[in-house]
């Protein structure tokens, strides 16, 4: 009796399918599982190993905006993944720097990046540097100078610099209505009461609501009491 070879065509198909199943269960699925459970590159590692922006610019074949969007999505995941764990976000500056190098006109990347850098990362100089870069690259947009003014005003209490940036914001289209009121208050805070008075008078003149007009009148009255010389003493 002639022995039948083990590898018959019908068997080969069954063996191949079985082996494929073994490879899937034994190798492919565990590797996928390892990636899912964090054994692969985490968000921080992906941020650390991010190529320099200049290299990304070339690699993206000129589709710089798409590359900037992809890194922005990674940045958001990085912020979301770290905001409740470690509060210093060490890779945030690098990530946002990459985004704005790829697309210097991505204004929201400057403002949101600086906001998280400042309030979650505690990196105020980094936030200021980022916003100044945003203001230089987008001289017609009010958001970066406005956020610089807010940072100097609220966080650093540097009123002359806050005033400088609010004045720049005031000249730009689309700026919020409250900017002139901040400028007037900052002039008063920095001791230039005459200028503050002029600003409040201008605000009263251009006010479109009673609410704004009332504020202006209240502030004018307050300043006039401070500016005008004290009334002469009456003698009996």
């Amino acid at each position, binding site marked *: 009796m002639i022995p039948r070879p083990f590898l018959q065509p019908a068997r080969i198909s069954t063996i191949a399918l079985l082996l494929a199943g073994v490879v899937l269960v034994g190798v492919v699925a565990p590797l996928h599982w390892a990636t899912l459970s964090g054994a692969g590159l985490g968000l921080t590692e992906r941020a650390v190993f991010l190529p320099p922006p200049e290299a990304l*610019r*070339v690699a993206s*074949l*000129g*589709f*710089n*905006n*798409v590359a*900037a*969007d992809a890194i*922005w*999505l990674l940045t*958001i*995941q990085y912020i979301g993944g770290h905001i409740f764990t470690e509060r210093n976000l060490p890779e945030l500056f690098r990530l946002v720097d990459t985004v704005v190098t790829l*697309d210097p*006109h*991505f*204004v*929201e990347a400057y403002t*949101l990046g600086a906001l998280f850098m400042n309030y979650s990362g505690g990196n105020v100089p980094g936030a200021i540097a980022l916003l100044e870069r945003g203001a230089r690259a987008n001289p*017609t947009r009010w958001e970066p100078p406005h956020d610089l003014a807010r940072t100097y005003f609220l966080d650093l209490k540097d009123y002359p610099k806050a005033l400088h940036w609010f004045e720049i914001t005031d000249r730009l289209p689309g700026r919020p209505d409250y900017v002139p009121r901040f400028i007037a208050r900052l002039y008063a805070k920095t001791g230039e009461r005459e200028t503050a008075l002029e600003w409040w008078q201008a605000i009263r003149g251009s006010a479109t609501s009673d609410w704004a007009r009332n504020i202006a009148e209240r502030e004018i009255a307050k300043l006039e009491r401070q500016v005008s010389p004290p009334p002469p003493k009456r003698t009996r």
Partner: protein
Amino acid sequence: MKISAIALNTFREAVRDRILYSILAFALLLIGASAIVASLSIGQEGRIVKDLGLASSNLFGTFIAIFLGIGLVFKEIERRTIYAIIAKPIHRFQFLLGKYIGLVLTLLVTVGVMALLVAGLAWATDGHWTSGLLGAAALDFLALMIVTAVALLFSTFSTPTLSAIFTLAVFVIGRLSGDLKLFADQFAGPGLRLLIDGMYMILPDLSRFQIGAQIVNAMPLAPHQIVWTVMYGLAYILMLLLLAIGIFQRRDFK
């Protein structure tokens, strides 16, 4: 008349090609998926839909231009149908122009479908119409017309594989020509700088046609810049077609 007959025939042939539908399906899938990706961003949904949509339309349009463009003349030679065509009272340049216009018509339809989908998605995401999005797609289309002319030029004297490689190389260099020039100015020695400057003068500068970033970031566009870009594009296409006609006219089909 002869040119339009060949153009319509080329268009009909192209729309029957399965590769066109495969590429278009992938492009529409990616443009549609941009809406899902956009939902991961904070308040930047519209931006991501527009960026990814315009890039997909441009990239897949380029694939269509290359993969259909490289076979325009070669297929006719391989099937030996070229002998029947050139034996008829028709000039070779008419044949070549008809082929080019036919493929450009195909691209117009496919890029138009993609651009309308991007504009529709952007409208649905932002809640308002983004003016200039279709203008950006139109300039992208002009860049695709250049890539098609490059593919046609190579297909007049080379094999499809080599034509695809050459056209892809021209596309990549064209997209990066601005960066290449910058690199040469900053780092290269005199010899390399001369070489890169020479390449910059000859090869198409496709980065000129990318106004998507300005549209997405709501930046003002200078009308004279658009006019110059359109003139540049048309002049470059004319130059490429004249070169292709010059080579094809001399070609011996024995």
